[in-house]
């Protein structure tokens, strides 16, 4: 991520120390992760210690300090999805992408996470990719769906 863009985001929030989380969120959603240089820049501009920024960036799951894939896969492992076969969906995704939950593949194509209930249990087992819900997943459909992502 170029630092000019980071500066723009910081300025959009008037370099307000109280907007720290908002600034981090903006960078996270644009860049998909928080590079160290960006955090140092924020620290300098907002006059907030880097220790504080790190504490926040590591506290919330919404932030990542390592590069994330272009597509974020969330497999629901909640109770309803679990009994409807979420494990098989997860196994299929792990096999096809070669990554485990919490990991990103080498081509930065996919990042995989598990979640506990996406709030649409009737559609279970549910797989969410980039915010889009794919319901009633079978292993075959899971494989089909993954193919659509570049």
């Amino acid at each position, binding site marked *: 991520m170029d630092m000019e863009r980071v500066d723009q985001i910081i300025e959009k929030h008037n370099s307000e120390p109280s907007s720290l989380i908002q600034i981090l969120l903006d960078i996270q959603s644009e860049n998909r992760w928080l590079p160290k240089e960006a955090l140092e820049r924020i620290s300098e501009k907002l006059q907030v210690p*880097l*220790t504080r920024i790190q504490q926040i960036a*590591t506290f919330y799951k919404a932030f990542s*300090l390592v590069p994330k894939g272009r597509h974020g896969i969330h497999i629901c492992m909640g109770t309803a999805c679990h009994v409807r076969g979420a494990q098989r969906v997860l196994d299929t995704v792990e096999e096809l992408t070669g990554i485990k939950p919490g990991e990103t593949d080498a081509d930065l194509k996919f990042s995989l996470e598990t979640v506990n209930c996406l709030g649409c249990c009737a559609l279970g087992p549910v797989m969410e990719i980039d915010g889009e819900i794919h319901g009633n997943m079978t292993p075959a459909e899971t494989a089909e769906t993954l193919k659509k992502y570049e």
Partner: protein
Amino acid sequence: MSEILLEIDGRQVEASPDMTVLQAAQKLGIKIPTLCHHEKLEPYGACRLCMVEVESRGSTKLVVSCVYPVENNLVVRTRSEKVDKVRKMILELLLAHAPDSRDLQRYAQEYGADKNRFEKEPSFCIHCGLCVRYCAEVKKKHAIGFIDRGTHREINFIQEIASKECWNCKECFPLCPTEALQAAYVLSGALVSSLPIFK
């Protein structure tokens, strides 16, 4: 400032309104065990070892004395069956993380805490925050901070700041109730490699 009158372990004490129960007790020379308290630092209330029983307006409750402000007519008991039981439990839980800490062992003896009660999960750091807060509040260097959360929380040195400041300071080491093992370890790690979380 008008003085506040309260009773601690049956003795009357005058305190100023900005004092905590812990400070008022110290004024009387009454010792309350603490782990995360430091007179140069803002109250933090992390370890809960300094719990005492207070009685005000007819009811008793357990409060954390290092963050609890004094109040008129407060009746405080720094030792009671309930208080001792809580302290024993806290010590047993902390000892599972830092079994070799001398501070903890000393208190454990006093309160009859069994260091083997809970399965050991040595992490050395008991999250008292003394090192982090001392660096921020007293030295104003912010070389060390916490990362992650819950049981995964750990201290972390900022390599760039640490390599400049820490070798000549190290004032946080003796503050650590777990004998600075962790601090020393993480610091040397931070100086030779890059920050663990940025690997």
